């Protein structure tokens, strides 16, 4: 078991190192590619996907899926910007944005458990609903937020150099560590794994699986909401058309990091590495001056290879 666990982190980690090494060579300027400045750029770009990947890991481990991440990010970025525009204190605006994400997740959870709609469809519906609501509350425009300290949260170069990375990066790391502990060491976390591993067994053991699912989607929603706040912080405005398709990056991060869409498997550490793999690939491609479509093709290939390697490993492991 331990070897297996170790492998599930080591494989994506090797992939990450491989990607970094590849571009360090390809760009011909390893000192620039590996510089702190470039690392700051990559990490700042990763925050939005990484935060959402924390929530998505929980959902995927429970054998669920959430397709409404991008729309939820757009909605919560708009809500945060609106709160600021209406003169709310920044902290209250952050809470408003985050909680909005939680409410979207709660509605997803209720649709899945009370209306018995499978997660794929329930969240596909929410993808449209949340995007539409975002456009409605934003009056179909971007919402400009007055400058506050929120704009500092996810910047590439923090104004206080001693911070090294933007506060959003540190927040992501802290939350990733916390949620790793929650998933591994709490009753709730182990039940998330049990639910994804064998739902019928979990129910037969007296676990209220419906209640558990509602919690999972709601908590994940909080993370998507926080991603929305970061989105607002980076753009300095709420944009109802932003973050289209981000859910696919988020799912890819979890899967590259060893998550299994059939549930029971996945780790937040792996998902963080998965998010970094994609960020470094994008960053490297940009530095090489490759057009956007090349990045898209490369990332697509990487996702398939990552899962193929994982399948190969598990099929060998069971024989």
């Amino acid at each position, binding site marked *: 078991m331990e070897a297996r666990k170790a492998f599930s982190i080591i494989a994506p980690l090797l992939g990450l190192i491989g990607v970094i090494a590849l571009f360090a060579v390809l760009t011909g300027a390893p000192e620039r590619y590996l510089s702190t400045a470039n690392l700051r750029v990559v990490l700042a770009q990763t925050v939005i996907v990484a935060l959402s990947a924390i929530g998505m890991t929980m959902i995927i481990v429970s054998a669920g899926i959430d397709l409404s991440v991008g729309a939820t990010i757009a909605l919560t970025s708009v809500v945060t910007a609106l709160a600021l525009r209406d003169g709310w204190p920044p902290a209250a605006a952050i809470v408003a944005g985050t909680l909005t994400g939680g409410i979207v997740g709660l509605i997803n959870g209720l649709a899945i458990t009370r209306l018995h709609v499978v997660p794929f469809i329930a969240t596909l519906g929410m993808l449209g609903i949340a995007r539409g609501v975002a456009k409605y509350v934003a009056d179909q425009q971007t919402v400009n937020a007055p400058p506050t300290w929120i704009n500092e949260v996810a910047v590439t170069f923090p104004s206080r150099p001693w911070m090294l990375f933007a506060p959003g990066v540190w927040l992501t790391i802290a939350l990733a560590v916390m949620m790793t502990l929650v998933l591994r060491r709490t009753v709730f976390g182990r039940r998330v794994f*049990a639910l*994804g591993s064998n739902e019928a067994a979990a129910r037969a053991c007296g676990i209220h699986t419906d209640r558990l699912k509602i919690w999972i989607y709601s908590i994940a929603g909080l993370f998507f909401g926080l991603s929305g706040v970061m989105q607002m912080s980076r753009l300095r405005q709420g944009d109802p058309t932003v973050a289209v398709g981000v859910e696919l990056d988020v799912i890819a991060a979890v899967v590259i990091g060893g998550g299994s869409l059939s549930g029971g498997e996945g780790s937040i550490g792996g998902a963080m590495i998965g998010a970094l793999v994609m960020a470094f690939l994008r960053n490297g491609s940009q530095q090489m001056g490759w057009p956007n479509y090349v990045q898209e093709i490369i990332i697509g290939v990487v996702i398939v290879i990552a899962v193929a390697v994982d399948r190969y490993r598990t099929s060998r492991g069971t024989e």
Partner: protein
Amino acid sequence: MTLLKLHAIEKRFGPTIALDGVDLEVAAGEVHAVIGENGAGKSTLMNILSGAFASDRGEMSLDGIPYAPIDPAEARRAGIAHIHQELALCPHLSVAENMLLGTEPSAFGWLDRQTMFERAAALLREFGRAEIDPHVRTSNLSLADQQVVEICRALARDARVMLMDEPTSSLQRSNVERLFRMIQKLRDRGIAIIYISHFLEEVREIAERFTVLRDGKSVATGALSGVTDAELISFMVGGRPSPAASPRPLPRGEGSVVLEVENLAAPPRVHSASFVLRRGEILGIAGLIGSGRTELIRALFGLQRATATRIRLHGSFGYLSEDRKREGLALALSIADNITMSRLSTCARAGWLNLRQQAAQARDAMQRLRVKAAGPEIKVARLSGGNQQKVALGRLLHQDPDILLLDEPARGIDIATRQDVFAEIAQLAASGKAILMVSSYLPELLGVCDRIAVMSRGRLSPARPISEWTADSIMEVAIGGSA
């Protein structure tokens, strides 16, 4: 002293009457066998006891207190645990996590891992299975060990009544004995065990009392020491004439060789198998589960990589998987679709299906095998296990191959259905088919086959005529590996 008492339990599903007056009394520290044909209502009864369904009528009491669970969680709290036929564990979790799932020791939501592993280890020790590591991922355990985990899970919740549904169906003999020792310990603890099995000799070995269900009614109850097997079977079958035992055709003439296999190896399970199969004969493959029998058949059908010095084949293969639900049938499709699936060309022209022709062909196979269903359009998922197995066999009949590879053709089906299935297999052989059949159940092999070869640790013994084998000599080869 009666612990669990059921009186006049009734249950309907729409127009179907599943239970029609069941009485059952089980004392603490008693192993009580519930026997009956498939479809007699055993599963429904277990589901009512374990809180999965509510009964429509009748009373249940546990320790003198009325008992009517609204869901499985409440049944568990009341101390009734259901050990499922298909194991209900979480493969990704550790052994200890599975045992204590739902009752994890914790403080403020944080798992108390030390207590969890200690409790799990203590339970395993108590049942003499200390070698199972509670830290290990459950999917790495053998099926037999996973069953131990499931039983320990029930104990961890202070179960007073355990419902065991065919607990030996996927165990080999040595593990069955270990299970029986475990059941005896449970009994000594005062736990009441309701034991469902198709194997009468097994029931006699472990249970003291029995109740027979027939058509949703409890028709007989008493001490097993006071009845003969013949009486039990007549309770199960009732007034209906029991189908004649499969006719034992005299040694069929030497048919032409259709399959010749020399030194087939399919690592890691199969090391060496050589045999000759002739038209008109039934060659049985005996052996323990895990000895490589299933893998041998799968390798022949091309489902597993294999090498061989020589394979000569004159004809076509048909394959019946031991895993009916996953490989044998498309449960969501109709009987007609399932029966005609391997050879749709018989009811199609230029790629277009002739549905009337398909239904007619399916109806023929259903009649021949006595499949109980309203019509060929019924979904297979709605049939009982025995009828599903007949449909799976019907697919082979329709395919009409020269060689039939049958893996556990009578798994999990009742006696009457089993007789139907074996009568059909004998008839197929008589009509010139060659049959290679794997079975865990010796009386079945001895009753049906012309020759038997025994698989032991991946090596197949030479095939010998049935007259040269006894149950004891087969077991000896299976366990010892010498032929």
